[in-house]
């Protein structure tokens, strides 16, 4: 047995590069295995094209909802470097507010009026959900996060988890465990048919609205003065403050943006899946957070891309791989783990890491 001593400088580099190639090879191998599995098992079922199209549509709708929620995580992370774990509950509260607004408009008869009146009422219902979510989000920031601004990073995280449980169980105590059921007005119930593919109206509305809202968010962040301030604060809080930017105001604005998107998602999901209950934000929040990490947390286009990707994987994955749909979460989280192994900062995370490094 020989003992060899190496000088420490050149070797780690070579080793890292070897590991790098092993990792690459492993990645290619996994990809080949997946494709082989899809080809031999998934395709062997001979599903018609319309099946894949309707699954993809299901995935896009799911992805649209995830995207709206994921943006809330990513916006807050980009600025405060903290994960707002109560964000799922912000969505749920939006869903509840939307439900009560729906009850109200049903009671005053607006939902049986002309199409224009119904559409207006629906807008107001979404607005009510957004308002409730914004109030919740801003209160959270003021009560649970701002006092801990200077604390070590784990502290606001624990506070966020506490806030999440607080909100869930407050809603449980106030509204009970039974789910609340959205009654779809006739205008958006049902859907239309393209060949063999059924497209529900609510699905179209969700996807279109989430694209619109994401576009609006992009414009606000990239073009408006407040957006510029947000980006400055994300870059460097101290310097931004020196430049005369009111950091607190920018942070509150960020929470308003994220929560408004969450509220819209909560109400639209209520119309789509018809049920909202005290814990319906929990899993949704985790999925959306996954989507944000998948795309590269802190990165806005990343969150949108990660969310749509996650939605598609969840809808198409089980059929394509020929495994039961109850394992959809395993597939999506495996994809997350794989992507993090090969791209530790997420799909579009590089831009951010350069900026933050």
């Amino acid at each position, binding site marked *: 047995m020989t003992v060899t001593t190496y000088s420490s400088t050149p070797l780690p580099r070579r080793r890292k590069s070897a590991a790098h190639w092993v990792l690459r090879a492993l990645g290619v191998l996994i990809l080949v295995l997946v494709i082989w599995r899809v080809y031999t098992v998934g395709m062997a079922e001979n599903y018609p094209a319309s099946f894949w199209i309707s*699954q993809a549509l299901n995935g896009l709708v799911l992805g649209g909802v995830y995207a709206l929620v994921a943006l809330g995580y990513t916006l807050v*992370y980009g600025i405060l470097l903290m994960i707002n774990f109560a964000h799922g509950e912000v969505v749920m509260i939006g869903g509840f507010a939307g439900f009560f607004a729906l009850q109200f408009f049903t009671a005053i008869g607006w939902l049986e009026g002309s199409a224009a009146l119904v559409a207006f009422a629906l807008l107001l219902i979404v607005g009510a959900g957004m308002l409730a979510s914004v109030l919740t989000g801003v209160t959270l920031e003021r009560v649970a996060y701002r006092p801990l601004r200077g604390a070590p990073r784990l502290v606001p995280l624990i506070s966020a988890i506490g806030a999440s449980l607080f909100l869930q169980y407050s809603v449980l105590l106030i509204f009970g465990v039974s789910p609340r059921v959205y009654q779809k007005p006739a205008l958006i119930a049902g859907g239309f048919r393209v060949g063999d593919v059924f497209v529900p109206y609510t699905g179209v509305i969700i996807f279109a609205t989430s694209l619109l809202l994401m576009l609006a968010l992009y414009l606000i962040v990239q073009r408006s003065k407040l957006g510029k301030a947000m980006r400055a604060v994300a870059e460097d809080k101290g310097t931004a403050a020196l430049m005369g930017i009111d950091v607190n105001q920018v942070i509150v604005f960020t929470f308003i943006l994220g929560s408004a998107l969450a509220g819209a998602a909560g109400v639209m999901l209520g119309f789509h899946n018809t049920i909202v209950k005290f814990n319906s934000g929990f899993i949704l929040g985790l999925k959306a957070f996954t989507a944000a990490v998948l795309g590269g947390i802190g990165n806005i286009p990343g969150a949108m891309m990660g969310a749509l990707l996650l939605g598609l994987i969840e809808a198409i994955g089980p059929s394509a791989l020929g495994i039961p749909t109850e394992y959809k979460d395993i597939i999506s989280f495996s994809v997350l783990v794989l992507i993090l192994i090969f791209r530790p900062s997420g799909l579009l995370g590089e831009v951010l890491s350069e900026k933050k490094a």
Partner: protein
Amino acid sequence: MQNTRNAALLLVLILALLAGCTAPAVAPAAPAGGQEAPGVQPADAAAQPQATGGQVVIAPGQPIRIGGSFALTGPIPDPGKDIRQAAEIAIDDLNAAGGVNGFLFELVAEDGACSGDQGTVVGNKFAADPTIVAVTGGTCSGETFGLKPILLNARIPFVSPSATNPAVTGPDCDVCNRVALSDALQGVVDADFVFNQLGLTKVAVMHDNSDYGKGLAEIFQNAFIELGGEVTHFEGVQVGDTDFRAALARIGASQPELIFFGGYSTEAALITQQMKETPGLENAKFMSDDGAYTQQYLQAAGSAAEGAYMSFVAGDQQADKLAAFTEAYVAKFGVEPSQLGPFHGQSYDSVMLIADAIKRVAEVDSNGNLVIDREALIAAIRATEGLEGITGTLTCNEIGECGAGGVQIFVVENGEFKQVAGFGL
């Protein structure tokens, strides 16, 4: 870079936590046919009850405490509440009739949450409390699997009003009893109804991965295949999920004539609605079980529920007793019991059965204390014969099946359940 890494690490942690939380939901359910539930090992020799068995000694003025494990939260809160309130009415009636030798009853209600985990927590709570004489519950099968080994070990007999998985009772468990009827019956009758009365031969089976839902779905599937039918899919979903479109699209590709769902009302309602939007399933029928036979299902599924079938394991309702019970229930809680859930009769009877056994074994000692021997009580419950309850004449067999009645099948018509086949029609 560092931050993103931390975030990723954190995510993995949270996922691990989540996996821990949801594990019981995906735990495999009991196989059909009275076998032992997985995860519930029969108590080994060392863990077997101490020979002494023990006695409960109740001082004068103290109540006879009966534990109750009810699904007050979880997937079926309304039926859980109904079962609890019915048990309270039973306790009121017992006390109004003078209790046992002047000793009154008291209900110690705990939330079993319809889950195995919470069932274990409740079981340990009861086992640690020497004043608990017997237990009514649990509401759900999974919850009861949590209670079972602990109560067996603590020598506390239980009577479940509504846990229907076949493995809840068995020859190896002398403290396990129920007033509900086993799913071994329900699944077979359902399969027979679909095959012979509806004349359908191609079905898909779904379940919610709970001990109850999956167990029933398996029984249905086996019975249906035995009859000569074809089962195109056997798909699980998760309790709490709200979007089942991906699973349904897959089932729709083989165009089954009916979907049978083993599970509870919320998921059943969502599947009923989303089926209508799935290519290949627009005209498929839907059938579910006594877990979905609730007002909550009708309310949540809305117009999509029209034409859906539900089965229920009903007692042999004694009209006059039920009327008196309903009157007391409405007077105390201000709501018709049938608005909340279907198992109130079983719950009332389950408490009455326990109380009847206590009356037979309780003795007053020289100090005026009421003494209940635990082993004698276990034997007395098993020996119940010809007890007149709301759900019929209750007689316990050698493995603790005490229920009376049979399976009824309902169809949803104009937003209400209407019986179309089965027992008592």
